[in-house]
Structures are given as C-alpha cells and as structure tokens.
C-alpha cells in the first residue's frame, strides 16, 4: 500500500511538473498550450543530442538546453502567438495544435524515431525504507517540482513583473495603460514556460524514456492535474498532479488496471462537478 502511494506521488510529480508550464501560459493569456508536451520532448532531445553527439556533461547540457528552450519560447511567441493577438483565443489554441504536428514531425526527422535512454539527474541506488523502495532521483524531482511551484507562486504574487503578467491576462488594454508591454509580458511567459517544459522533459525522460512520444500520456495527465487542482493557481496543478498519481495507482492496484483510466476521468468529472473551479481554484464570479 505505502509503495503504491509513494510511487503514485512520484508519478504525480511528473504530471505536476509538466502542468506548471501549462498553467503559466494559461494564467497570462487564457491560452491552453496543447503543444507544451511536444516542446518538452523537443527540448529534451536537444539535451540528449548535446550529451551524446557533443559529449557534454549533464549539467552543461542541462544549462544549454534551458537557453535553447528560452529561444524556442521566444520564437514560438514571435512567430505563432504574437501574430494572433486580437484573434479569438481559440485560434491560438488551434495554432498550438499545429505546433504539435510541426514539433513532433521535426523531432522525428531530426532526432530519429528510436526510443532512447535519458540519464537521470541523480544516479544513486534506491533507498529502501521498510517495504518501500524509492529512487533518490524521484525525490529530487518532487523537491524541484515543489520548489518551482513556490518560486512561481511568490513571483506572481509579489513581484511587480509577475503581477504585470496577471494583469495582462485580465485586461490587456488596461494593462497597456499601466505601462505594461503586453508583447514583452507574453514573450517572457512563453520563454519561461518553454524553460519549464525543458526542465520537465529532462526530468521526466528517464522515466518515460526519450522518444517523440514521450509526453503523450504525461501531457494529458498534466492537463487533467491542472484542471483538477485549479487552473488559476500554482498550488492546484501540483496538488492535482499528486492526487491524480496516487488515486490512479491505488485504483490500479486494488480495483482494476483495465478500467483505471476510465475511473480516473470519471472521478475528475465528478470532482469538477462538485468543485467547478478545481479543488484549490478560487471561485470568481462576474458581478452584474
């Protein structure tokens, strides 16, 4: 039982990690970036190439990948998102669907279709506590996830720039009148979110292995986690991820693995009906 829960938490942290970038974009521009998973995959391939083709050590490759990710975020915003300012939001979401195809197709052509092993950040033996066996790398991922969550939380709550990002999401024109450059704000969030995707990808890849498909399930689940926990907070997606991971595992272990997915989504729907803004989401009602 405890192993199932612990493993659930670990898987959940992957969902949570992937969800943070998604929520970042959403909070600022109301856009659901369907391509978040593919960005993670592509960036992870960059890290892999740096390590295998150029023989770089992990840390250097990690840092360079983050720089690459920032550039990718910049380009995506510049080429795809910015021209869509002023169009209906759904257009931007469809554009990110297009982005999935481009990134997935390019990744196959550039990096090949085989599944690859991606190194862990921390390569230590499993820790065994009683009947539970834990990979220290997994603990690290959980810590990083929670760490990023807090950084984002404080940045958005207290930093002027973070506030500006939230302001743009609520009323872009009024934000302009406050002296906020919408372009710079969305640019920086896309860059941040791309960086988050890279970090997520590099941390997730040792578990899912690296290939063009690595994020398929994680992305779907991260989206679900974000919604489950509340899309407009940072705590929500992380908590949502953990909850999802654990529930999924418990159901799989003690009820049915075949019907696990059906159960998980049914549960999400029920949870949402009870708490329409997610477990931690704040209710915001339009006043008339």
């Amino acid at each position, binding site marked *: 039982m405890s192993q*199932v829960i612990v493993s*659930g938490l670990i898987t959940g942290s992957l969902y949570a990690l992937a969800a943070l970038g998604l929520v970042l974009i959403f909070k600022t521009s109301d856009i659901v970036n369907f391509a978040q998973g593919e960005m993670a995959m592509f960036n992870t391939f960059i890290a892999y190439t740096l390590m295998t083709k150029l023989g770089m050590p992990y840390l250097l490759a990690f840092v360079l990948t983050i720089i690459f990710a920032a550039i990718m975020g910049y380009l995506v915003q510049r080429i795809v998102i910015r021209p869509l300012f002023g169009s209906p939001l759904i257009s931007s979401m469809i554009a990110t669907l297009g982005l999935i195809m481009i990134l997935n197709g390019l990744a*196959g052509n550039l990096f090949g279709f*085989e599944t690859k092993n991606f190194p862990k950040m921390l390569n230590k033996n499993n820790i065994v506590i009683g009947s539970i066996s834990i990979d220290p790398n997994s603990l690290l991922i959980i810590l990083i996830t929670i760490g990023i969550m807090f950084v984002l939380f404080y940045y958005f709550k207290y930093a002027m720039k973070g506030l500006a990002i939230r302001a743009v999401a609520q009323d872009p024109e009024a934000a302009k009148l406050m002296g906020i450059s919408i372009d710079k704000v969305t640019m920086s969030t896309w860059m941040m979110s791309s960086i988050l995707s890279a970090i997520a990808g590099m941390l997730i890849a040792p578990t899912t292995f690296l290939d063009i498909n690595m994020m398929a*399930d*994680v992305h779907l689940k991260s989206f679900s986690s974000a919604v489950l926990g509340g899309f407009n907070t940072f705590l929500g997606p992380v908590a949502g991820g953990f909850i999802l991971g654990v529930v999924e*595992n418990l159901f799989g*272990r003690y009820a049915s*693995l075949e019907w696990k997915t059906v159960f998980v989504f049914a549960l999400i729907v029920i949870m949402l009906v009870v708490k329409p803004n997610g477990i931690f989401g704040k209710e915001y009602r339009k006043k008339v």
Partner: protein
Amino acid sequence: GNNEKDTTAENKGKDESNVEEVKLAQGVTDDTIKIGTIGPTSGPIAMVGIPMLHGMEAYFNMINEQGGINGRKIELVAKDDEFKADLALQKAEELVEKDKVFAIVGQLGTPGCLGTLDYFQEIDIPCIYQGTGVSVFAQAKGNYFPVQPNYTFEGSLIAKYAVSDLNAKSVVLIYGNDDSGKEGMVGIKEYLKEQGKEDLLKEEIAFNLEDVDFSAHIQKAKAQNPDVVIVLGYQKAVPGILLEAKKQGLESQFMTSYINADVTMLDLAKEAANGVLVTAWVPDITDANNESAKQYIETFLKYYPDETPNAFGVAGWVAAETFVEGLKRAENNLSWEGFIQAMETFDGWSDGIAKGITYTPDRRNGVEKMYFMKAVYDSNGPRYETVTDFMGLDD
C-alpha cells in the same frame, strides 16, 4: 470506374485481361515492379513505421543496386495511414487503383491491416507480411502471406517453455491491452488449458500502452510470488516494467515477446533486463557472428547512417526479402496467380534472416518455430545469448 460495387471486383477483371495479353499483372513492366506498403509514418506510431519502412527500403535499394530481380527494379510506394483503419483502406484503394501496384508488402499496424483485409481479399492482390500479430491473417489464406509469428502462437510457446522447461508452478501475466498482449494471452490460456494447468496462471495484469507508472502492476505481481512473469507488450512499457520490478525486488523469471528482442530493450532496461527470456524467430541481430544479421545492419546503416537498425527495421527487411524470394521463384510469371503459386512453393525457406517459412495453399502461419534467448547485461556488455534451438508447439 467508381460505380463498381465494393463487393465485386471489376478491377480483378481488368487485371485478368491484362494478364491474358502480356501475362503481367498491374505494376509490372519490363524493367520495374511497383509495389506498395501502408503503415504509420507520421504521428506517434511513426516510431515503428519509419524504421520498418527503412528496413524495407534498405533491402530494395540493395537489390536494385545489384540490378534488380530478373532485370526488374523494385519501386516501393509507401503510404501513411496514421495508424487508422479508415485511412489505410483509402490508401489501399489508392495503391491498387491509382498507383496500380503489383503487391502489398510489409503493411504495418493492426488497425490498418484489419481495415484493408476485406478489400485486399476481394481483389486478390498478393499481400506479403502483415506487421501485426493478429491471428486472422494466418486464416486468411489465398493472397495473404503472413511472415512474423502470430502472438497467439507465440503465447502458447512461451507458456509451453515456462511450464515444461522452467517447471513454473505459478505464472503471472502482465499484458498490454492491444493485440500484442491480448492475443498472446489467448495463446497462453489455450496452451495451459490443453495441458489442464489453467490454475498455474495466477493473475492477469493489464497495462495501457501509454502507462508510465508500473508500480501497481508489479505490486500485484509480487503479491503472487510467481515463478515466472510473462510480459506481453512492446515498446517502452516492457523496459519500464522490468525497471520497476527490479526496483521493487521482484525476482521472478521474466519472459517476453520477440518484439522486444533488440538493442532497445537492453538499452532502456539496462541491468533490469539481465536474465529476461525472450522469444526469437530471427537470429539474434545483435550477434556479431551472424552473417545475415550483419548484412542487414551494414545495409541499413549504409542508407540510413543516423538511425539504429532495430527490430522494426528487421521486420521491414524480412518483409522485403520474403517478397523478393517470391519474385525470384515466380520468374516471369508475374500475374497475381503466378506469384501466389510461386509463394506457395516456400518450404521451410531459411535463406534470409527469417528461418523456416512454409506456405502451402492452406498453410499460412508464416514462422512456426521460434527459439529462446536470454538477455544478458553484465560487464561484457549487453547482449543476447541463445538458450534453446528452434522449437514449435509440437516439438
């Protein structure tokens, strides 16, 4: 003509008239033979479709460079069905009616193969190698020539080995919820039933192809403390399961399907793969002393230097070499009937990577013998070691 009934074969009539005049079916000229293939080469399953296609192309390129077969070069038209049955059918119609291909070679993907089955049977175009383990193709007969073993057969064989050679008293099955898992499960159960040992199978544990967390699966397996754990599935799930088992200290004997018998599993599972028994129907391609495997790897790398020649590539290669062998045997009698007759002369054919292929008018199982290898991951490097000879269910 678009007014034909789907169930009649106006085309077939056309082809027959062709055949009568020049004795050649569509797609065949004096210096080329045009053939088609369908498989997922974009989207998620492209990771299987592309290597398989490249395996085929490597082989055909090699043949063409050698001057082709009977002076005819082989031209392969590849269509992408995105792993969808409906698109596969549409592509099949395109290949047959627009591209006018002579045969369908190395089609990949269960949905696509199933989706086109009725159509190809109607028009009777030769179909060599179905990249799926579904057993219906073995029963299709006529124009169908499956090569890779079907999963039901394989499942039975694994069960047989577990029971009679490993003396397993308790078996747990972890299977993927697609054909690779479910048909294999049927095979295992069939065999155990025959032997009256159904109760050996203690637990059937399903996983979804996209699962990443296998802790619950392993916990379930562990609870049975089994002698043998059979893992049926492919791609990343299998190494994922092995790693989790190692982490949780489940030390049963693991067995898995030939789909995983390549470098990728060793690469991904590392030490966790050590000792796993895998079935094989082609000689170990990772074995440096195996001539036909060497040829495959060298040729593949010649045309696709940046890619890994993996098991999917082998599948394509085998499809191509089986087809080419048929061509050689048919010589100039390249009507569909002629070719099919030539294919039916395969009798334990073993010149290629694949061994022991037999076709008669009512025997279309493709490979019917397999052997077992053991994955080894130690200081001498990752490799497979052969542990049995080729064996069938009746041996």
